[in-house]
């Protein structure tokens, strides 16, 4: 197994951002490929036990990735990622959105902007993702939607969540 890899998750409520920093045991080109090629994204992007399914991928400025996270019983949650700016293999910026199966963005849901940067950390790679929401109200809207999806399912996941957090 690899040695302990750096992982930081910082919430800035005032500026409505989440910053995720993570070290990976691989060279920058490979880590970049895993983030930007759908065949590779499909193998890691959805958290377990969900899986990732790509419907459309065009990794270029103005292009987008349309994908679903699929639950073990087949329920699909569709999203799309629009690529705003790409600087191989240093950074890319995207606009995230909830969609339906046809890729139409849900206009009632806030979209978030992601800035993803890649840098060398000795022979490893450091990836920093900053997720920006437009306002604290937008964050609240996303949280409220999560609430609507059901308090029960959240509670059912608490045990699992606590295990993850302690790991």
């Amino acid at each position: 197994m690899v040695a302990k890899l750096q992982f930081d998750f910082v919430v800035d409520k005032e500026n409505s951002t989440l910053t995720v920093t993570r070290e990976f045991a691989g060279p920058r080109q490979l880590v970049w490929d895993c983030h930007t090629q759908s065949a590779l994204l499909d193998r890691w992007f959805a958290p377990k036990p969900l899986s990732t399914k790509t419907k459309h991928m065009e990794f270029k400025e103005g292009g987008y990735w349309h994908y679903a996270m699929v639950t073990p019983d087949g329920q699909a949650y569709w999203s799309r990622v629009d690529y705003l700016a790409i600087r191989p293999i240093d950074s890319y910026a995207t606009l995230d959105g909830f969609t339906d199966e046809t890729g139409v963005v849900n206009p009632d849901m806030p979209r978030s902007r992601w800035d993803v940067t890649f840098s060398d950390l000795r022979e490893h790679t450091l990836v920093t993702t900053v997720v920006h929401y437009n306002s604290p109200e937008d964050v609240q809207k996303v949280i409220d939607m999560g609430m609507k999806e059901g308090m029960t399912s959240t509670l059912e996941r608490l045990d699992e969540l606590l295990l993850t957090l302690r790991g």
Partner: protein
Amino acid sequence: MDNYRVALDAIFHALSDPTRRAVVQRLGAGPATVSDLSKPFDMALPSFMKHMRVLEESGLVSSSKSGRVRTCTLEQDKLAAAERWFEEQRALWSNRYENLDKLLEQLQGDVNGS
């Protein structure tokens, strides 16, 4: 950030115990009296009340007394929801990145193995 951390610590402490987690899960189905809540547990009432106090101090549970009956309610307020959402996001990223660790290991194993 400090207030956020204090609130979060209290919530995690509250949820670090299986009895308290079971109570929270039960209250997710709706309010219940202390005596109903304590029934599934083989525990003296004073010990059970200690758990209830921890839950109330964390803000996850509130209670009100009517006569001799104390009824508890899960506080689904926005603060708790927000903290939970942030923690879910953290767990999501952590889990997602563990997948990527494994994938990177496989991809580099392929290269080294050939």
